[in-house]
């Protein structure tokens, strides 16, 4: 087992190929109807957003409540490119990632001077401004939304039903997770954490604080933009400004907080759980926000590092005890 772990650590790609094969088989074994496939695609999309949000919020410690705006930018880049240029997912996805990255840059600028709740307000304003801009722009079809965004066709096979679209969303999610893991486990991830913990101290160690804040924002914006594009093409291919409100943002935040801020698996665990819970509580629509608000509050009170941190702590404590306890007794 240790040897297997070591191989995975050296060739992280292998692990992802194994995960890919397993996830390819999941639908045929477990899913009984189309709706479950749809939910699975949605989970994939949410994982991408949450993994990105974890970079900027969990690792770099910059509170951003405007991420849903960038998600909207990704979606509407895809939507508008289809509407005016007739492009498919393979063109709109890179374009959405690129443009979302530019927006991420803009969102990073306030973080140079603002902190905590003030930064949250600034980014909240930014995110809402984007949504309102879309809602009132005829170019973006305003409140009609963009519909009939096509699904991609590979080798003549259209991926136009939820059960097929899962095979598009899932690999993209795996690629996104792969990138987030690579970044966060490298020196860049460590620098992000240092900036989160103490910017002055980080600067004294030679870490360029502004550059890393910018990097974190741009990276996570690219994740959100990519997720937005995948969401836009999700069957039935319909996007509307109301899909990008603060409510969605709270859900994304709940994912990251619940899964574990600053934990490499945090966003992923959280995205899976919260998306399923969100779906199960649909009949209780009026209470949904209440439930997620409470989830955030209770997680922060009793499990400040979320599920991921909780599990981590258990293993580290046990290892530490076996190491030092054996030595002292």
């Amino acid at each position, binding site marked *: 087992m240790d040897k297997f772990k070591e191989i995975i650590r050296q060739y992280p790609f292998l692990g992802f190929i194994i995960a890919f094969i397993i996830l390819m088989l999941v639908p045929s074994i477990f899913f009984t109807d189309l709706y479950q496939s749809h939910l699975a695609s949605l989970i994939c999309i949410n994982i991408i957003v949450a993994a990105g949000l974890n970079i900027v919020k969990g690792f770099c410690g910059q509170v951003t409540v405007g991420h849903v705006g960038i998600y909207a930018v990704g979606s509407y880049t895809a939507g508008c490119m289809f509407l005016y240029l007739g492009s498919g997912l393979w063109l709109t996805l890179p374009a959405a990632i690129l443009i979302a990255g530019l927006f991420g840059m803009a969102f990073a600028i306030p973080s140079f001077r603002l902190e905590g709740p003030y930064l949250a307000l600034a980014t909240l304003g930014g995110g809402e401004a984007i949504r309102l801009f879309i809602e009132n722009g005829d170019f973006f079809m305003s409140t009609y939304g963009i519909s009939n965004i096509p699904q991609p066709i590979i080798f003549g096979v259209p991926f136009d039903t939820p059960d097929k679209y899962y095979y598009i969303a899932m690999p993209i999610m795996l690629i996104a997770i792969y990138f987030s893991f*690579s970044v966060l486990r490298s020196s860049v991830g460590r620098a992000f954490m*240092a900036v989160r913990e*103490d910017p002055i101290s980080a600067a*004294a160690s030679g*870490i360029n604080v502004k550059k890393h804040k910018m990097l974190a924002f741009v990276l996570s914006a690219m994740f959100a933009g990519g997720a937005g594009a995948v969401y836009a093409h999700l069957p039935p291919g319909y996007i509307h400004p109301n899909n990008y409100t603060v409510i969605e943002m709270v859900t994304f935040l709940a994912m990251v907080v619940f899964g574990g801020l600053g934990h490499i698996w945090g966003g992923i665990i959280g995205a899976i759980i919260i998306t399923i819970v969100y779906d199960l509580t649909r009949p209780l629509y009026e209470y949904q926000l209440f439930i997620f608000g409470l989830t955030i509050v209770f997680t922060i009170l009793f499990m400040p590092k979320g599920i991921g941190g909780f599990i981590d702590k258990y293993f580290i404590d046990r290892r530490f005890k076996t190491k030092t306890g054996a030595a002292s007794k």
Partner: protein
Amino acid sequence: MLLKTNKLMKAFGGLKAINKVDFELPANEIRGIIGPNGSGKSTFFNLVSGVYEPDPGSYIEFDGNDITNEPPHKVGELGLARTFQLLRLYQDMSVINNVMSGYHTLVPYSFIDAVTGRKKIWDQEKTIKEEMMELLSFVGLADYAELNASELSGGQRRLLVLARAIAGKPKLLMLDEPAAGLSPVNVDNLMKILMRLKEKYGLTLIIIEHILKVVMDTCSKVTVLDHGEKIAEGTPTQIKDNNAVIEAYLGKKMDDEEMRKALAV
């Protein structure tokens, strides 16, 4: 000269925290900086390391580079490391990550390498980690490597801060009260580790310290600041007998006439 300041000045409003300080430090020296509270010692550190911007007219040179208006991370890159009076540990990071982030400027791979996650990176990360573990066992924290920094005791935190500052292989290490709050045994231990580190890495040191024993035992030369001005400089024995220094710490001895005047008012 490794570090040189010329007419270094910094005013906060009307208060001249540092007033025209000329400071010269050759390589391989251990220099102590002492002075009463509020005399500008920490401000001096903050100016040199780029945390504060000095007032116009000042000049700071480090290792042949003009660093007067450089941002702190540039100064850090040039090989000037420092610790903080309030430690500023990365509380919520593991001990090993604390030290490894101190190594940041020396990491051999680029950002693009990191994003694509090539195998070469994990090899390099491994060697960095081994090197940092060596450093940790040198200061005696190897067993605690995976614990959160916030779980360490006060003395261990001081050692960790030291290890983090040295991780980047600096040329000059500036320590802001490294022994504050330590028991005498721990102070001796810390000083022993400090001296071994200095020899091993060929460091030049500047130490701000209120425990005079530390300053007198380890420093080859001492600079005394008072009200932002340099009032004395010399070997520890010279400083001990310097009237200006005694005055700054204990006040001036008054004769009868002066005393009478002071009491009348």
